[in-house]
């Protein structure tokens, strides 16, 4: 905690604040000119709850302008502890008094560490003033000026909503002023200049400078800025000639360039010339799609003909569907085109078994079916669609035996479409259906073992079936790490604390955010500045902000809180988790709000919710999604806020604005936006009633009866967790809720205790009961795969069914073991 005295650190860590204060007082007497101990005194006061005294001490010290960096950082911590905002930023205030290069550099580092863009802007601006007087070289002066210019750009691009209109106007000009006499030689330097010119509305000058640079160096980033600038300025003649130059003379076959080429041709009356360019160009995906793009500008160019042309040329490539789905819309009728190609490729012979499948066949059939389903989504409701998917899969699956290691079999998409269709056609996602889907998917994965969409669907379905160990093993096989922990860990962490006591994944995620992100990213932003990779700076800062304010990061803390409560790990909550949650609460309160494009000032949901759907027709099917979400619904932002407030109401009783927690909690609970399960809603209702001073608790929802459903474990884990919350409140701040509050809590607790006792007694029978249910399912599922017209089309053998049930039974037992731990 401090570099000055480990003894004081230890005393503070042991929470013996009286003793700590006395030791600090002695230190102040011993070293009256050392500012650090005064800051430490304020910190000890803040930690011991003497908020006003702590603020006074901190303000007194700040008024004396301490220049020691450790002291300043400690002062900032004190203000945060006290939930107090000083009139002026600590570093800013002191740096004004002592504008030394070193101190301002520390200010900049601090701003970077805390993703404070406006702080970065002020610090870099101050550096430009101090750099001249500190004897720095011309090269260093240039670097600092470029930093300041880039920081003006950052402020305008990333937190415009926080700037006053005059600042929005002034900052780009100040940025340009910074670099006006500098010789800008590299692409990143010219990038900053270009962005500032754009922000200043100096489009002509911007285009001129970009054009001149591109004559000397073909920089990709600047080329894109130039093209966009020409389009924005409606300089279509220049845009046409320039894009033509890149496409033809430089042979840069780039789709965005083609689009701008055709757009500018249309606006400048050069479509005829453009068509001759397209038609004489080498046959590539882009040039063939350019023909389709033409149909946007003139009816003379028949879209259907070019769609047919594209399918004919690229029907056997997997990119066909994503490429065409830009031009072909849901509801378009392309059946005839598809059927002609179907015949041309001799598919009927393949399906009749008179010829063997090729890789081109399977990819064409995948594209054929995807395009059909995409243009007519009612197909998902048709049982014949499932039969067709199965027929295509069975006709092409001999190719599975020819796969080399790590290669995919594209026919897996027939199965994904089938799964989606089966869910669409079912009235609800019940356990029997989930088991059938799992068996189908497992069978598909067996010979296509690296296909990750299949795994993602299985992970989701196993979770619905309350088989965390299966989801977890599949997840581990994906070798998820680093940033993927932020984007795609949610399929196994969403409410994982209510089905298992295993927190290893939660701890791994926590480590990623609190160690890797915290240590690596600010350092890399500094490297970005020092390397003058200023065209990457905004991306770096936004990257840091999105990680620091990540939805996954917060939900992970909430899950860890639940897990810690279940294991009575009170110190983990008090020392580690509660301060983090309070920080989040303060963050979304102090956040000034931002535009949709800005990542600054809001919680950023980085979860990858698209890869799961990036197969089949590459679109989320709302009906399927709703059914999947009926069990263990994905957390949403309201859920997150509600749960953060719940934890703070339980654990942060000394917060100065504690009443705000209660008020906001009630508002959010009553708005019903949160993606809560019924038992969670009931659990939260206990807190609501406590706050409202009600005396009679709501009836606990009936317990689920089927262990093979996520809600079973979730229900009992939540019940036990709620009881622990109540016990905590009663033991630590029950009296503050008055007699009626205590009475309410005790009556809920008594109810819960009875329920838990009864569950623990019955849990001994869980294994027998679930075996009974499983054997019933097995009979029904086996029968379906043999005798049902649809079920039998999957050609799943009895052995495969048995293997899947053995695996489910094993995982089910592991879930029972977890339940017995609570």
């Amino acid at each position, binding site marked *: 905690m401090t570099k000055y005295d480990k003894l004081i650190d230890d005393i503070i860590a042991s929470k013996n604040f009286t003793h700590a204060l006395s030791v600090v007082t002695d230190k102040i007497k011993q070293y009256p000119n050392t500012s650090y101990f005064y800051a430490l005194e304020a910190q000890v006061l803040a930690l011991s709850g003497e908020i006003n005294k702590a603020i006074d001490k901190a303000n007194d010290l700040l008024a004396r302008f301490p220049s020691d960096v450790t002291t300043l950082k400690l002062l900032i911590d004190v203000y945060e502890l006290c939930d107090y905002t000083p009139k002026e930023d600590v570093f800013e205030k002191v740096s004004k008094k002592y504008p030394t290069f070193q101190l301002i550099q520390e200010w900049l580092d601090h701003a970077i560490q805390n993703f404070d863009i406006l702080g970065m802007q002020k610090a870099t601006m101050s550096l430009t003033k101090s750099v001249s007087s500190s004897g720095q070289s011309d090269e260093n002066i240039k670097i600092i000026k470029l930093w300041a210019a880039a920081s003006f750009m950052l402020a305008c691009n990333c937190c415009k909503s926080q700037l006053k209109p005059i600042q929005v106007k002034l900052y780009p000009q100040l940025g340009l002023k910074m670099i006006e006499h500098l010789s800008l030689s*590299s*692409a*990143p330097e010219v990038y900053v200049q270009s962005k500032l010119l754009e922000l200043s509305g100096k489009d002509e000058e911007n285009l001129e400078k970009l054009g001149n640079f591109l004559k*000397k*160096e*073909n*920089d*990709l*980033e600047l080329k*894109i800025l130039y093209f966009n600038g020409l389009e924005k300025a409606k300089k279509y003649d220049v845009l046409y000639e320039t894009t033509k130059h890149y496409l033809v003379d430089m042979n840069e*076959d*780039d*789709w*965005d360039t*083609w689009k701008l080429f055709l757009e500018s041709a249309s606006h400048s009356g050069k479509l005829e010339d453009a068509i001759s360019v397209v038609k004489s160009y080498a046959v590539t*995906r*882009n040039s063939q*799609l350019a023909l389709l793009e033409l149909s946007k500008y003139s009816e003379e160019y028949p879209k259907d003909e070019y769609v047919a042309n594209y399918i004919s040329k*690229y029907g056997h490539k*997997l*990119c066909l*569907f*994503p*490429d065409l789905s*830009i031009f072909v819309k849901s509801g378009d009728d392309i059946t005839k085109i598809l059927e002609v190609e179907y015949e041309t490729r001799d598919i009927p012979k393949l399906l009749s078994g008179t010829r063997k499948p090729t890789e081109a066949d399977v990819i064409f059939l995948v594209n054929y079916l995807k395009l059909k389903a995409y243009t007519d989504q009612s197909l998902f409701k048709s049982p014949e669609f499932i039969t067709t998917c199965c027929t295509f899969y069975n006709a092409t699956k001999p190719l599975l035996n020819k796969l080399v290691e*790590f290669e*995919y079999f594209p026919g897996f998409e027939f199965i994904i479409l089938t799964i989606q269709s089966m869910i669409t056609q079912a009235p609800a996602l019940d356990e029997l259906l989930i088991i059938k889907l799992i068996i189908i998917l497992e069978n598909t994965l067996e010979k296509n073992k*690296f296909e*990750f969409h299949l795994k993602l669907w299985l992970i989701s379905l196993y979770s619905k079936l309350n088989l965390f160990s299966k989801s977890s093993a599949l997840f581990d096989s*994906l*070798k*998820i*790490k*680093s*940033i*993927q922990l*932020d*984007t*795609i860990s949610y399929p196994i962490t969403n409410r994982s604390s209510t089905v298992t006591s295993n927190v290893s994944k939660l701890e791994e995620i926590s480590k990623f955010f609190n160690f*890797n992100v915290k240590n*690596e*990213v600010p*350092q*890399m932003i500094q*490297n*970005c500045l020092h*390397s003058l*990779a200023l*065209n*990457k700076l*905004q*991306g*770096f800062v*936004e*990257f840091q902000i*999105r990680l620091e304010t990540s939805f996954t990061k917060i939900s992970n803390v909430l899950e860890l809180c639940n897990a810690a409560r279940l294991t009575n790990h009170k110190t983990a909550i008090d020392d580690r988790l509660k301060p983090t949650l309070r920080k989040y609460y303060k963050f979304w309160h102090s956040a000034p709000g931002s535009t949709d494009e800005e990542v600054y000032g809001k919680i950023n949901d*980085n979860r*990858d919710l698209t*890869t799961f759907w*990036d197969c089949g027709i590459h679109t989320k099917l709302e009906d399927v999604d709703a059914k999947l979400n009926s069990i263990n619904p994905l957390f949403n932002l309201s859920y997150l806020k509600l749960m953060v407030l719940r934890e703070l109401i339980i654990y942060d009783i000394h917060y100065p604005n504690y009443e705000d927690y209660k008020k906001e909690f009630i508002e959010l609970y009553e708005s019903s936006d949160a993606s809560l399960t019924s038992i969670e809603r009931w659990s939260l209702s206990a807190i609501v009633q406590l706050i409202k001073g009600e005396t009679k608790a709501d009836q606990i929802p009936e317990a689920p009866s089927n262990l093979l459903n996520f809600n079973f474990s979730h229900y009992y884990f939540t019940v036990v967790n709620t009881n622990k919350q109540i016990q905590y409140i009663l033991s630590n701040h029950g009296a503050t809720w008055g007699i009626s509050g205590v009475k309410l809590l005790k009556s809920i607790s008594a109810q819960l205790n009875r329920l838990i006792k009864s569950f623990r007694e019955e849990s001994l029978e869980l294994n027998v009961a679930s075996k009974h249910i499983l054997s019933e399912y097995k009979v029904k599922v086996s029968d379906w795969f043999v005798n049902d017209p649809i079920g039998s089309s999957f050609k799943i053998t009895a052995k495969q069914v048995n293997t899947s049930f053995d695996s489910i039974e094993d995982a089910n037992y592991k879930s029972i073991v977890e339940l017995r731990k609570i």
Partner: protein
Amino acid sequence: MTSIKPVQATDLFETNPINLDPLTENFYIYFYLQYLTDWPSLFYKSTSARNTITGYMLAKTEGKSRDWHSHISAVTIDPNYRRIGLASWLCKALESYTEPEKPYHAYFVDLFVKCNNKTAITLYEKLGYSVFRRVVGYYGGPNDIPSKKKLIDNEDAFDMRKPLKRDVKRKSVRENGRKQLVFPEDVYF
């Protein structure tokens, strides 16, 4: 359709369709960010018309005097966009960025590939690369001791090179590169 665009750090949130592939290495954050700070124009992506990432190239420059070259650290493609020449396209783009006098003016491009990855080796040969040397044990585990007497295709790498215009005398390539055996520690610039 495909466009080439520069990578920004925030693109790392969007790489799952590529990085969930078992053959694509998922590096730590600092690794990607270092490429962005040190070689900002050599980390770029191919995108679909929906602006999703369909592949990316992660490259750098290194070496001194005649060894000054660009190195392909990773080039990888979304499974939906394979076998349409996208990897070749990204490789050719690298040549066009590092061959001219400004800003890099490299003598050659090189890369490492497992000796048993015949598909990739064929692709690179079609693009004009040839084997310069075989790095014995390059992909071996930390406890494997490489030996020039025991060549293992799954653990050894071919260092493949393609000369650029600046290498007028083609000194960066040689005949019989497959028979030139070196250890990983011999490979440095």
